């Protein structure tokens, strides 16, 4: 590959009625990612091109775009992996377009906030003024840690067929995070969250299309989290759920090492 043909979605609010594709041809260098190509276009070809990026290393979740009809993080996608020199980049579907490739993720963040994405502890005092560590076994950690890797990039929401038609549906990201918190032994807010997601536009509108897990760039597997959440809710509604013991605290010894004598200052 010597040159790449990029078709990039352009849209300027107040000027364009609908988005259109603009073609650019740029030289290819080994190791280029889609984000590198977009930065090249902005710096050397057309500086009006708008896109969102931040960490450029696949951890902040800012640069989600649709590349050749599949949602990807632009910084995390080497051009060679696409195995073509014709690349079409659009903004993420199911999110409103602000400009060019920049989509508004406000709805994702609002839905995420609505499911109370924090540990709801039974002992508020200990949570706010900790005196000890919580004890969690490796198995307890592994039951939720996969879902804690979510970077809130929105690729799963772009992939979900239910989000495509239903503006009120919570979506794979918030639902996956409900399970992440409910299964964490430090959290006692499962019942509260179950009532939130047991709505007509809640967890039961997920039909296991699996596209969210396919699109997820961090291996979070939100589809698995949602199905495990459904199991937890079914068992809870049939009163078959095992009663969960609250997490225990481990008071660590305060003085674990001998104190080292500080030598006298040489400069007074």
């Amino acid at each position: 590959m010597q040159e790449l043909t990029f078709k990039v979605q352009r849209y300027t609010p107040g000027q364009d009625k609908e988005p259109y594709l603009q073609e650019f041809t740029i030289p290819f260098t080994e190791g280029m990612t889609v984000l590198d190509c977009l930065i090249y276009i902005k710096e050397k070809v057309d500086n009006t091109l708008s896109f969102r990026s931040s960490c450029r290393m696949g951890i902040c979740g800012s640069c989600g775009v649709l590349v050749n009809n599949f949602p990807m993080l632009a910084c995390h996608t080497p051009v060679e992996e696409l195995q073509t020199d014709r690349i079409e980049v659009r903004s993420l579907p199911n999110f409103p377009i602000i400009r060019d490739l920049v989509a508004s993720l406000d709805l994702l963040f609002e839905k995420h906030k609505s499911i109370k994405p924090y540990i709801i502890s039974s002992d508020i005092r200990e949570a706010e003024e900790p005196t000890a560590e919580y004890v969690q076994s490796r198995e307890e950690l592994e039951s939720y840690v996969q879902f804690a890797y979510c970077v809130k990039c929105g690729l799963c929401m772009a992939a979900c067929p239910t989000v495509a038609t239903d503006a009120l549906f919570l979506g794979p990201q918030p639902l996956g995070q409900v399970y992440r918190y409910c299964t964490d032994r430090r959290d006692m807010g499962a019942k509260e969250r179950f009532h939130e997601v047991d709505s007509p536009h809640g967890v039961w509108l997920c039909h296991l299309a699996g596209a969210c897990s396919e699109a997820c760039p961090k291996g979070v597997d939100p589809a698995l989290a949602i199905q495990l959440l459904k199991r937890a809710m079914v068992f809870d509604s049939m009163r078959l759920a095992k009663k969960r013991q609250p997490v225990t605290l481990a008071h660590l010894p305060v003085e674990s090492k001998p104190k080292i004598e500080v030598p006298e200052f040489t400069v007074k």
Partner: protein
Amino acid sequence: MKETRLKILQYITGIGLFFFAGTHLIVSHLSSGEPTTWESVSGRAASAGWLTLYLLLLIFGLYHGLHGLRTIILEFSFPNYAVRVLDWALVVIGIAIFGYAAYIPISAF
């Protein structure tokens, strides 16, 4: 946990339909002989077992189908305040269809 209970019923009716509808389809469409002649139909109509199967098939099928339709309607951003109206409308439609469709085999029994 209303939605969860409705979905559990959807699973139960799905499993039931696998057997009831499966039996009905095999007998009506795959078995040898003439299952749709008047004699054959009247023969099944006189049997309590077949009548029970038809009524269960109707109840399970109507619940499963109308719940599926409800799910699809909800996915068009159907507003939460109108969901009760939708539910009652589907209940009324379901009962009306059941009344009409159950009358046929019961009257022939």
